[in-house]
């Protein structure tokens, strides 16, 4: 096997089909980038989901003087009432843990949470956030019963289910993920068809050479390898562009998500690199396979 000869043949093939090759590279790059973005989003969703699923709580805010809820009658529940609410919560089978939080503690926590946004932190007053019970559920999915029993109880202002907020967020993310994967799938089909067409043209352009190769007894590998590698190289170059695009989507899409929404757990460069390498390998294999199958039809051995 003479490497130089094979490389030379590949170069001739790629150059003769320059426009097709460029189209192929662009298509592969977009397909791989979208595919990778879809996978990254999926990883982000899974990771955030895992991270948050044992942290989400149902918060039961008690009435205070500022409550808008008419049931509260603008007054705080008595200590007995509070103890009763707590007892009721603890007796529910879905509940794992009940942690009371006083208005003062809530104020401190909010100040801490928004310390990077002085405007918000400054406008918070003690007592804005009433006393509450933070309820940890055994299974975060079984929130309905707790919410239902607590909602219209005397002394309770609001029941906030954090899970519902998270779900909304995850729905947006997984919507993005499926959109990216769907477009990636369509692009992949286009890429496969383009590979087939490029290799067919290439085989036609070089039919004289391959005819002679066959005649003088070149082995099938020798005849086919330049074509298969031609497809694989187009896949590789497309993959490199896809890697660049994926790095962009890590920095701009996921980076922004993480910055703007405190909900997101960061996805490291290790994850991104894994996705890039995987989608590159996938792209190269796909192109090489498509070339090989096309050759079986258009190149007589």
């Amino acid at each position, binding site marked *: 096997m003479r490497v130089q*000869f094979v490389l030379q043949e590949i170069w001739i093939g790629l150059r003769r089909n320059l426009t097709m090759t460029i189209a192929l590279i662009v298509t592969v790059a977009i397909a791989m980038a979208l595919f990778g973005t879809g996978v990254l989003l999926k990883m982000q969703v899974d990771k955030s989901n895992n991270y948050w699923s044992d942290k989400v709580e149902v918060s039961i805010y008690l009435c205070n003087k500022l409550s808008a809820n008419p049931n509260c009658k603008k007054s705080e529940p008595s200590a007995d009432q509070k103890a009763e609410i707590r007892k009721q919560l603890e007796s529910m089978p879905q509940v794992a843990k009940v942690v009371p939080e006083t208005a003062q503690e809530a104020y401190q926590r909010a100040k801490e949470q928004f310390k990077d946004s002085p405007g918000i932190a400054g406008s918070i007053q003690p007592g804005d956030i009433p006393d509450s019970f933070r309820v940890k559920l055994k299974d975060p999915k079984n929130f309905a019963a707790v919410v239902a029993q607590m909602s219209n109880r005397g002394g309770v202002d609001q029941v906030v289910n954090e899970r519902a907020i998270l779900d909304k967020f995850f729905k947006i993310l997984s919507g993005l993920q499926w959109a990216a994967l769907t477009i990636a799938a369509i692009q992949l089909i286009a890429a496969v068809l383009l590979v087939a067409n490029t290799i067919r043209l290439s085989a036609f352009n070089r039919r*004289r050479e391959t*005819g*002679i190769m066959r005649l*003088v*007894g070149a*082995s099938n590998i*020798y005849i086919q390898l330049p074509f298969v590698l031609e497809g694989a190289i187009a896949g590789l170059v497309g993959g490199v562009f896809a890697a660049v695009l994926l790095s962009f989507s890590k920095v701009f899409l996921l980076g922004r998500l993480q910055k703007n929404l405190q909900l997101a757990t960061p996805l490291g460069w290790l994850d991104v690199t894994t996705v890039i390498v995987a989608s590159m390998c996938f792209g190269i294999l796909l192109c090489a396979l498509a070339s090989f199958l096309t050759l079986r039809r258009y190149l007589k051995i």
Partner: protein
Amino acid sequence: MIHFDNVTKVYSHQSRPALQGVNVAVEKGEFVFLVGPSGSGKSTFLRLILKEERPTQGGIHVAGKDLSRLSNWKVPHLRRRIGCVFQDFRLLPNKNVYENVAFALEVIGKPRRFIRKVVPEVIDLVGLEGKAHRMPDELSGGEQQRVAIARAFVNRPMILLADEPTGNIDPATSIGIMKVLDRINRTGTTVVMATHDAAIVDAFRKRVVELEDGRVVRDQSRGVYGQAYGGV
């Protein structure tokens, strides 16, 4: 070297067989003219030797190998022992004489040092001394055919198949081509040449196998082209 044992070939979309019950034995070092009108089966005969086609019936042995038992991935090795020359030369227009001949060795993975040694020898053998760096379109038809012969012979095949090698060449130049083929034959290479060229067959007086409608109608050592096709 080449044995056809009761070979019949029917192409799938045709009812009339291209070859019918052909028995021919060509021994090592022979020179055989294959004659007959167009469509008589000459090309099929050559394609069967290369295992480009399989016989519908009968057995073929080439260079000691039973072709029906030769697996597909071994066919390239068979073809390395057979050189081929065609009426239309089949040179690569973007390669010069040297590169065209070297191509045949490059694609079977011969080392460069070997190629550099044998290609000039073969170019001299076919009478193209000093023309190694000419492009095919700078050569006459006769010279192009010499390049094609050099390419077919550069790997020292045991058999050389020539399908109307003088079909596109004027009679005077054809004699030169025949001399090259004769020189190759004298090195011990078996030559089978399909031709319509009566003058050449008559002048060279080699073995003649005549095909008609896929059957061997004459097999004659030191034969002539035959009267039915405008020969002497």
